[in-house]
């Protein structure tokens, strides 16, 4: 995979945190999706959030992007406490999001989706500038999209995901959140997204990345925050944690279904006919 070696130095050192969450709780009726969650992201740092299905990862992203208001807790952005009550608030702060369900308008074409809500020339759209910028962004992601003037409805799943990622890069974000950005991507596009995440880090953006793919996480993340049943279950420096330890934190036990499987496979591999 075309990814750079993992950075090992402490990236939070000295620069301070651009985003800090303290005690974030979010309940949906009787369900506590998030309980007392803390998270810090520094400039130029990639933080991965991992956890089982339903652990609350997407909910955390939605709280930060203004889709859901938190039930309680504080969000500090660039040193001052903020409330993010609408997606427009998040946009103004410079928090861009790629949602797990992508949130694209199927009836609009690629350019219209990319610039939705941030069109160039509100009273007289500059279609040319928007199309040029669209191609630029899509090239950067090695997008395999034949034309930007077709409705998103007729794109493949991976093409749509690329459009959603390209969307998040418009308009100078300070924090980019990607909720399972590579779930539907091909090999080359996944590598491009990982490259992109590293470029974002080099440019000094904070990146929050959600993934179920431990290889991807270990390839680009600086720190990994584990969520389990809506609570913090440890924050690890990627350089000093193994896959097994992460899986143990995710599932909540060192004796879990994943270790059992690998033990079984190990036994089979050693084989009987010794």
């Amino acid at each position, binding site marked *: 995979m075309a990814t750079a070696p993992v950075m090992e130095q402490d990236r939070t050192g000295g620069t301070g945190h651009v985003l800090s969450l303290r005690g974030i709780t979010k309940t949906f009726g009787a369900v506590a999706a998030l309980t007392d969650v803390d998270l810090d992201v520094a400039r130029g740092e990639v933080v991965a959030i991992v956890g089982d299905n339903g652990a609350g990862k997407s909910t955390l992203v939605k709280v930060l992007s203004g889709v859901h208001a938190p039930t309680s807790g504080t969000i500090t952005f660039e040193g001052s406490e903020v409330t993010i009550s609408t997606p427009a608030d998040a946009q103004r702060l410079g928090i861009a999001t790629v949602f797990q369900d992508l949130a694209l308008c199927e009836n609009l074409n690629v350019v*219209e989706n990319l610039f939705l*809500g941030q*069109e160039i020339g509100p009273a007289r759209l500059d279609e040319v500038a928007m199309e040029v910028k669209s191609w630029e962004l899509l090239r950067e992601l090695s997008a395999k999209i*034949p034309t930007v003037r077709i409705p998103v409805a007729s794109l493949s799943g991976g093409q749509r995901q690329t459009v959603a990622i390209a969307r998040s890069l418009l308009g100078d974000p300070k924090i980019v959140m990607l909720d399972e950005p590579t779930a539907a991507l091909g090999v080359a596009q996944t590598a491009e997204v990982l490259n992109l995440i590293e470029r974002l880090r080099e440019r000094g953006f904070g990146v929050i990345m959600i993934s179920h793919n431990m290889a991807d996480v270990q390839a680009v993340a600086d720190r990994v925050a584990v969520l389990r049943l809506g609570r913090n279950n440890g924050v690890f420096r990627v350089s000093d944690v193994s896959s097994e330890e992460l899986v143990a934190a995710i599932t909540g036990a060192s004796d879990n279904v994943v270790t059992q499987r690998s033990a079984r496979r190990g036994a089979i591999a050693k084989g009987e006919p010794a």
Partner: protein
Amino acid sequence: MSGTDVEPATEPTAARVATDLQDERLSQGAGGLKGALAGLGSRVRGGDLGVIPVVAGLVIIAVVLQSLNSQFLSAANLENLLLECVPVGVIALGIVFVLLVAEIDLSVGSISGLSAALLAVFYVDRGQSVVLAIAVAVGSGVLIGLLYGQIFNRIGVPSFVISLAGLLAFAGLQLAVLGTKGAINLPFDSALVKFAQLQFMPDWLSYALVLAGGIGLFATGFARAQARRKASLSAQSTVSLAVRSIALIVLVGAFVAYLNDSRGIGYMFVFFLALVLVMHYVLTRTKFGKSLFAVGGNAEAARRAGINVRRVYASAFVLCTTLAAVGGVLAAARLAAANQQSGGGDVNLNAIAAAVIGGTSLFGGRGSAFAALLGILVIQSISNGLTLLSLDSSYRFMVTGAVLLLAVGLDSVARRSRASSGRA
């Protein structure tokens, strides 16, 4: 826009392929006019019918009705037909906006009737100036839209129910406003009635406008093509732009000349046309227009893109009810009266049918301002032709119903073939 009549941006030095045509899976059409026609052909086969079915329908209707009654295509009748289109056409234009955000307004007829009643009461009974009377009438439309928007956004009542309640309530209010008399005539010599019945463009002005329209179409198309070439994007060839503009000038010019033999084009129709063009600009060239399509396509995605979805819904309702009130004023002017029947009968359903027949989707996210114009032309042609044949409204209702079903059916078939050819 969607990949038709494209010509690779040609650079003097090398045959470079435009940025947007580099994917090898894109079929590279021939450039120029031939390419334009080929592109149109493949678009139609792919189910992207655009305005073709409506225009074809209009031609068929014209041929049939003309063969049944030779008066149908006479200049005098066509002039009349165009003017008859305007009041309900303006209302249909408003319907396009609510349909775009996947909502509905069933009360436009009652709102137009109430507006007509208010106009007549303030202008005739109270002797106010016509400007004030129009302001009150149209203002009532604005207020009703604001009310609908609040109820929809804050309480979450479906627009179907809100407007069904409005249909009844405002029909009642109309009766109350008209009082015991039940009908108020507008003076025939008032500017408003003259505007709707008697004022036609002088010949020179009509030709000048056609010419200006053709040249304007070419100029904007050419400017866009130049800008795209400069940015090394594909652009429409100058020849096909010129052919399009000349065709427009010749066809519309001939039609105008034909009408000019009689009285010509009524000012009220010009007003409608201007309104359609303005709304077309709003829908296709502004941020607000895009937000309407976005909300109709996926309201949650629009919200997450930072669009104030509630405001978009409220604007759509206000535009619709305001245009309905304007339609009511024009209907009163055309009739030179407001009465208990104003805005009743088939006004409501004709306005909605016109928007749909013209190609606006009932499910949101698809449609155009021209849908209102083309749809109302279809409906009024049928109504006018059947009246010439001295058939009563029973036939009119049945034929209009059949045409509506045909239009929606055609759209459903087209949608399926769009889905299979990637133009959904």
